[in-house]
C-alpha cells in the first residue's frame, strides 16, 4: 500500500480508468459536441430559427430549382431541403430535440426504475414478486410497439408525451438492474451494520444501497439515451413523433424520402447525425461499463 496518494473513491477510480480508454473518450467528445450544438445552436449556424422552422429561400425564389440547392454552395454547406431550408441549420437545431428526448426520456425511466427496483430488491417477498412480474410483462412487449400504443392514445403527441412514453417503456430495464444490485448487497454486513445503528430503511436505501448501484445505472442510462434518440427518430419516421415543422432528425428523414433520388443530401446528413450521436453515447456507455467493472484494476 502506498501511503502517498490521497484518498480516491471508487467513482473517482472508475473515471480515471475511463480517461485511459481512447474509444470511450472519442465517444465522450462526440457527446460533448452534441451537447454544445444543443445548447448554443446560434453560435454554430448563422441562420435564424423561429418556432415554426427555417425559411430562408422559399419566399424569394419562385421555382424549386432556385431554392433546392445541393451541398457545397456558399451559406449552405449541407444544401437545402425541399422548402429551401438550410439542412445544416436544421440538423444543429435538431440536436437539442434529440438530446432532450434522449435525456428526459431516460430520466423518467430512471425515476420509475430506481424507485420500483429498489423497493422490490429491498423489501423482497410479495412486493418483489408483484413488481418483478410487472417488469416481466413490460419486457414481453416489443418496445417500439408499446411506445406506439401509448402515443396512439394522444391525438397530438408533443415533447412531454414522448418523454413520458419513452420513460414508461424504458423503466423495466433500470428496475431489473437496481433490484439485482440491491438484492446482492441487502445481506452484506455494512447494511446489517446500518440496521444495527438504527438507520431507517429509507436512509439505508439512499445512503448505502443506491450509491452502490451507481456504476451499472450510469452505464445503462448512457446506453438508454442512445436508444431513446433512435426511438424518437424511428417514431418520427413512422409519422407519430414530433409534428412538423419541428426540426427533429427523424422528421428530416421522413421528409427526405420523397426526394431521395433528386436530393439525397436531405436524408444522408440527418442520418449521419443520428448515427454519430448514437455511436458516441454507445462508445461512452461501453467505456463506462468497463470502467465501473469491479474486476478491473489499474
Amino acid at each position, binding site marked *: *500500500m502506498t501511503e502517498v496518494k490521497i484518498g480516491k473513491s471508487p467513482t473517482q477510480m472508475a473515471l480515471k480508468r475511463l480517461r485511459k480508454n481512447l474509444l470511450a473518450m472519442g465517444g465522450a467528445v462526440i457527446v460533448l459536441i452534441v451537447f454544445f450544438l444543443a445548447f448554443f445552436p446560434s453560435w454554430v449556424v448563422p441562420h435564424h430559427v423561429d418556432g415554426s422552422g427555417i425559411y430562408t429561400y422559399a419566399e424569394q425564389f419562385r421555382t424549386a430549382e432556385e431554392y433546392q440547392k445541393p451541398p457545397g454552395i456558399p451559406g449552405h454547406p449541407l444544401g437545402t431541403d425541399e422548402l429551401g431550408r438550410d439542412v445544416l441549420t436544421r440538423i444543429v437545431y435538431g440536436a437539442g430535440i434529440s438530446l432532450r428526448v434522449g435525456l428526459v426520456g431516460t430520466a423518467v425511466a430512471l425515476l420509475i426504475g430506481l424507485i420500483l427496483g429498489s423497493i422490490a430488491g429491498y423489501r423482497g417477498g410479495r412486493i418483489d414478486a408483484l413488481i418483478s412480474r410487472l417488469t416481466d410483462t413490460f419486457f414481453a412487449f416489443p418496445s417500439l410497439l408499446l411506445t406506439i400504443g401509448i402515443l396512439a392514445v394522444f391525438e397530438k403527441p408533443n415533447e412531454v408525451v414522448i418523454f413520458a412514453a419513452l420513460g414508461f417503456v424504458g423503466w423495466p430495464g433500470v428496475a431489473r438492474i437496481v433490484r439485482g444490485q440491491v438484492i446482492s448487497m441487502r445481506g452484506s*454486513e455494512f447494511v*446489517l*451494520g*446500518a440496521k*444495527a*445503528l*438504527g438507520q431507517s430503511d429509507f436512509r439505508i436505501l439512499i445512503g448505502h444501497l443506491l450509491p452502490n448501484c451507481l456504476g451499472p445505472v450510469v452505464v445503462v442510462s448512457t446506453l438508454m439515451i442512445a436508444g431513446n434518440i433512435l426511438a424518437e427518430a424511428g417514431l418520427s419516421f413512422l409519422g407519430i413523433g414530433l409534428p412538423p415543422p419541428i426540426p427533429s432528425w427523424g422528421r428530416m428523414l421522413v421528409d427526405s424520402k420523397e426526394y431521395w433520388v433528386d436530393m439525397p443530401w436531405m436524408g444522408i446528413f440527418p442520418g449521419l447525425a443520428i448515427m454519430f450521436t448514437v455511436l458516441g453515447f454507445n462508445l461512452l456507455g461501453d467505456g463506462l461499463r468497463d470502467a465501473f467493472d469491479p474486476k478491473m484494476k489499474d
Partner: protein
Amino acid sequence: MSSEPQKPVTDDTILELDDLKVWFPVHGGVLSRHVGDVKAVDGISLKVKAGETLGVVGESGCGKSTLGKAIMGLVPVTSGKIHFESERGKVELSGLSRRAYRPYRSEIQMVYQDPFSSLNPRLSVQEIVEEPLKVHQTHMSSEERRLRVEELLEKVGLRREQAERYPHEFSGGQRQRIGIARSLATNPRVIIADEPVSALDVSIQAQVINLMRSLQRELDLTIVFIAHDISVVQHVSDRVAVMYLGNLAEVGRTHEIFSAPTHPYTRALLSAVPRPDPDLKREKRWVLEGDVPSPMAKPSGCGFRTRCPIAQEDCARDVPVMATVGDQHRAACPHAGRFEELLEERSSNKGS
C-alpha cells in the same frame, strides 16, 4: 466478588438472556407451507456482567452469531427474553419494535466478522465512522463530528489524516480498526464482537485483540466476544460460554473451563486445540466423530448425544438442564461427573 470502586454496585448483570429462542421458519413446497424450523438458538439463559468479556465459543452453525444478532435486534426473537440494564433503566429488548429499540442502540454496538463487507466501499472513513453520530447524536455539528472521528481513529491506532480515505485503501486489520472506531462512536457500554478476528492473519489478530482489550479497560466496556477459535477466546475472555447446536453446553470462568472442562463437548473442543508439545501422547487426545446434526432436525433429548463418547440411554429422553458444577460454573450434562469412568467402560466394551 470484587467490586470495582468507580462503578456503583447495584446489579452486576448488564445483559441477561432468559430461555432465549430464535427459530427460523422453513417454508417448502408449492404452497410454501411451514415445514419446520431451524432452531438456531434453542433456549439459552445467560448473564453478561458489566465490564467483563464473555467469550461465546462453538462450531460453525451452533447459533453463536444468531445469538449476537438477536441481542442486536437484527433477527426476530421467537420466545424468551433479553433484559438490558440501560442508562435509562432496565429494558426488555426482545419485545421492542425496531423503532422502540433505536434509542438503546447507542449503548449496544457490534463489530463484524468480515472487514471487507462490513464497510460500505463507497463511503470514506469519515462518513463510515460518523454514521452512528448522525443517527444518535443529532445535535452535533459536522465540525464536531469531524473532530470526534479523528479522536476515534487515533484511539484505534489509525492516523487522523486517514479519515479522507476509502476502505479499499486499507488492509484487513486496518479495516477492522475502522469498524471498531465506528462501534465506539456513540460511547456504547456493550460491544457484541461477532468473530472480529477470524478473517485476519494470526499476527494481525493479536494486534486487534490487544486493541480491544486496552479499549475495554479504558472505556469500561462489556464485550460479548463470539468466536470459533478457542485459543483466541481463552486469551480475551473473563468467562466462557460453550455453545452446541443452539444450546449452552457449559459456562464458567475462563481458567476453570480450560483447566477443568466438565461437559464432554467442551472436553472435545479443548482436546482439538493443537498444542506445541511434541511429547504429548497421541492417546491423550480423542477426536469427535461425525457431523453436527441439522438444527432443523435436532436429536431428541441432549443435542450432543449423537456424537458424545459417554452417551447413555437417558440422554435421548431428557433434555439436560444447566447444573452448577462449581463456583459460577455450570454445565448441561448429567453424566459429566462420571466422564472418565464412562469413557473407560465404553472403550473396554469396544475392545472385547
